[in-house]
């Protein structure tokens, strides 16, 4: 049997443009979801720096909170919050599609799993808020 050689230089490899995600709404929303992780990470780093200022004393902490009140930082955090909410909602509906939840032999319908996740998220947020407002309160 004769060997078949393929001349690789004759094969066409189409190049994907780096802007492929701008061509369709679904791709664009996908990229937005990926971008959400960047905003969340930046917020967490800023929060970590705030905790560091807390360790440095009242003056350092107050000065940092003052900086966070500037229009630029407030706008950043509002945008970050919108991205974080987008991450949360897409995460809940994705995990309900990806993770099959069974009760006995029957599968829980995905929209119900999403709703349950949303409910847990709301309850957790309220608990965190209450702990923050009322724990270790000075007498």
């Amino acid at each position, binding site marked *: 049997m004769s060997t078949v050689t393929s001349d690789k230089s004759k094969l066409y490899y189409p190049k994907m443009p780096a802007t492929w995600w701008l061509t369709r709404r679904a791709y664009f929303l996908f990229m937005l979801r990926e971008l959400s992780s960047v905003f969340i990470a930046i917020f967490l780093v800023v929060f970590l720096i705030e905790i560091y200022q807390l360790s440095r004393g009242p003056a350092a902490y107050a000065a940092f909170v003052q900086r966070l009140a500037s229009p630029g930082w407030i706008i950043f955090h509002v945008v970050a919050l919108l991205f974080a909410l987008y991450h949360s909602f897409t*995460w*809940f509906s994705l995990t309900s599609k990806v993770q099959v939840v069974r009760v006995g032999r029957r599968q829980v319908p995905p929209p119900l799993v999403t709703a349950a996740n949303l409910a847990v998220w709301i309850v957790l947020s309220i608990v965190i808020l209450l702990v923050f407002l009322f724990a270790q309160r000075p007498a």
Partner: protein
Amino acid sequence: MTTHKTSEPFWWGLFSAGGVVAAFLVPIHLLLHGIAIPLGWLPADVTGYEHMRVLFGHPLIKIYLFVLIALPLYHWAHRFRFTLYDLGLKGLRTPIAILCYGGAVVGTLATVWILWLV
């Protein structure tokens, strides 16, 4: 087809855990620390240095803060790594992976150190 062992599942696991933490916990903390506190929406005795230092000094709160801050960094690292590949930077796969996961590891160490200081 060749298969080889990779650490991919390990990083994916951290990505997944970070995604859960980010999804459930980050929005309320963003609202609190990024918007409500700087804009003075909450009582001063709650947001003032005294209460914050006591609250964040509590060991259980520190553990919670570690989980809140460190895990989503791995979520970012994994997502950002593949986003860069999707934007065409596949040729730099090794430096990108090192920068992304390395960044998350550095962030984790910084979190441990700063929480230790409070």
